[in-house]
């Protein structure tokens, strides 16, 4: 298969799957979709950023109608199917007051990059009913999803050095159920995943061409776009910076430090500027501390709790669609866990067969994952004091590129160690495709039966 054909295959798969999922998931059943849509509507209708108050009378009248009539009767009530559309009565869309919104709300503090692309799609469907405008904005997410898969293809190609492996990582990204879902509804995670994948693809390119400036330019663009999609992307920067330092030269060379600093500087500047601008909304959100939770209590009741760990980091990471209330049957998660266990066993038993860069990848991924978990739980404690739980499995998905490479490496190590007759990572890809089919069937049953 040629490089170009592989690229088209991955982009085509992402387009077909994204468009279909955008029609399958009923409106507005992406996580916080009304709030994200409201942000888009604010930019598209008023040409202005949302007012920076976290808690207020949010949403336009038609946004409120969508939320109260199509979302509220269903969320966390699996026995309630999606209501008949003839019971949905939004306000007249030709009346400008029906679309008027302050934009303030849970998504107000996010930077405008993703929402601007959504606003372009919204403007294209400007004269249509509200559900069609929402679908148009979902298609903007699908475009980000295509970018994610194309970057995944490049990541695999640059890291492993084969078109076939580029295709493998592209297929894993396209069929990772949670990433596919979030790239098909209105949510700025769609842009975040594309930027995360692009950043790691740039690092893989840098590994191949350590002296070239082009990978660093790609890394600078993707990291800045990532921060301007969701500021929490800054938390990935220590991992990006460390990897860029090692791959572009050496920790001991001053030039490596300067190149890395110059690459990430635009993103850090964007983060600082946006943080200063959005400070009122964040302060408003965190000032509502109402619950006293001690560190010990937090660790006992919120962190080291088996079923919560499983719910967040297995179900929430791999497949928890809808308003994060639609999961698969437990055995599906069991078989994902079985394959991950196989990759872990393969890594341990086949350690001697790994080349140094593969060992480095495994250690780096383990470190980045532990760091990510620690930082997410560290952030959860202050948020928890406002009465809200924070950590969700999808928050670790920006480092899915590392996980994908490590899973492939671990499964291949298993096959190599025992000279298996098949290439295990491709079996994993086939399993993800089947799980995707099951997720579609589950959504049909959950919402429409």
């Amino acid at each position, binding site marked *: 298969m040629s*490089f*170009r054909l592989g690229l088209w295959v991955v982009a085509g*798969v992402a387009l*077909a*799957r994204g468009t*279909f999922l955008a*029609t*399958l998931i009923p*409106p507005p059943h992406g996580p916080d979709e009304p709030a994200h849509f409201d942000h888009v509507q604010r930019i598209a209708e008023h040409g202005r950023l949302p007012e920076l108050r976290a808690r207020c009378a949010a949403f336009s009248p038609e946004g409120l109608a969508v939320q109260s009539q199509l979302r509220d009767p269903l969320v966390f*009530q*699996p*026995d*309630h*199917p999606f209501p008949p*559309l003839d019971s949905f009565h939004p306000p007249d869309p030709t009346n400008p007051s029906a679309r008027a919104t302050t934009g303030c709300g849970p998504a107000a503090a996010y930077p405008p990059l993703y929402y601007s692309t959504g606003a372009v799609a919204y403007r294209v469907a400007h004269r*249509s009913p509200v*559900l*069609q405008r929402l679908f148009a904005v979902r298609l903007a997410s699908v475009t980000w999803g295509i970018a994610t898969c194309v970057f995944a293809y490049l990541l695999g190609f*640059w890291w*492993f*050095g*084969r078109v*076939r492996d580029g295709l*493998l990582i592209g*297929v894993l990204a396209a*069929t990772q159920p949670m990433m596919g879902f979030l790239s098909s509804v209105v949510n700025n995670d769609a842009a975040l995943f594309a930027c995360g994948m692009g950043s790691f693809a740039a690092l893989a390119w840098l590994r191949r*061409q350590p002296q070239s400036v082009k990978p660093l330019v790609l890394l600078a663009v993707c990291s800045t776009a990532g921060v301007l999609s969701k500021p929490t992307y800054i938390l990935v920067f220590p991992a990006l910076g460390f990897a860029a330092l090692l791959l572009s030269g050496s920790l001991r060379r001053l030039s490596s430090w300067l190149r890395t600093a110059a690459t990430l500087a635009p993103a850090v500047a964007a983060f600082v500027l946006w943080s200063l601008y959005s400070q009122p909304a964040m302060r408003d959100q965190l000032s509502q501390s109402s619950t006293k939770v001690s560190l010990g209590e937090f660790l006992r009741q919120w962190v080291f709790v088996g079923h919560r760990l499983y719910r967040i980091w297995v179900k929430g990471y791999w497949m928890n669609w809808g308003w994060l209330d639609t999961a698969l*049957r437990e*055995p599906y998660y069991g*078989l994902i866990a*079985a*394959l991950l266990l*196989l990759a872990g066993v393969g890594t341990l038993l086949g350690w001697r067969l790994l*080349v140094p860069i*593969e060992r480095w990848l495994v250690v780096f991924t383990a470190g980045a994952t532990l760091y990510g978990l620690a930082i997410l739980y560290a952030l959860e404690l202050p948020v928890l004091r406002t009465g809200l739980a924070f950590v969700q499995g999808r928050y670790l998905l920006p480092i899915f590129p590392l996980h994908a490479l490590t899973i492939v490496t671990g*499964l291949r190590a*298993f*096959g190599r160690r*025992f*000279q*298996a*007759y*098949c*290439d295990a990572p*491709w*079996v994993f*890809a*086939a*399993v993800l*495709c*089947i*799980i*995707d*089919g*099951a997720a579609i*069937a589950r959504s*049909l*049953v959950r919402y*429409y*039966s």
Partner: protein
Amino acid sequence: MPTWVRLAATALIIGPLAWAAALLTQDLHARPTGRSPAVVQNTPDSFTLSPGRTFRVELEPSAFPYRELRLVTPQAGPARTARLEVCAAAICTAHQVRLVRYEPASLPLPSDFRGGGVSITPLAVEGAIVLGSFEGAPAVQAVRGFSWSLPIARAAEICRAMTGANVFIPLLALNAVVLAALIVLAITFAWRRSASDEDQARGASLPSP
């Protein structure tokens, strides 16, 4: 490496694939029921079944035949039985049902019944049986379908409202073809691995695109 070890390792790798295929087959075979809440007329949300006291539900006209009613009890404790007469479309049949919390009882409807009034008369009741909503499930649910066509038709209706076009079925078919093609591609690549090619690629310089 002994052949049996290689075979065992291969079995460990493809085991989850076979497991996934079996699970999906089960899911597709257990066709969705097409449940919808049925409003019990002139009756409070929760009520007690009394012999001879009829209650009625009105089911909206549907292109898909109704198959059965499901009765929900919020009552804890042992299962209780009742004999109920169901009259719909001028056909009356009597059925014995067993009511226990968490397990809705099924009450079959006449075949090809596509909506209208249904009256249910308890003929005999063991103890006091309360029907009422439980954990979000309404006291009486109408079940259509036992088929994938109902949810697909409903999803197509929602899709039409979102897109303004009848594109759900073509998109569903395209998606099914894409997933099937990916599975075939993945299995093909899994079995046609080229170890030498792979080893050459590990740590080697990038081939030109």
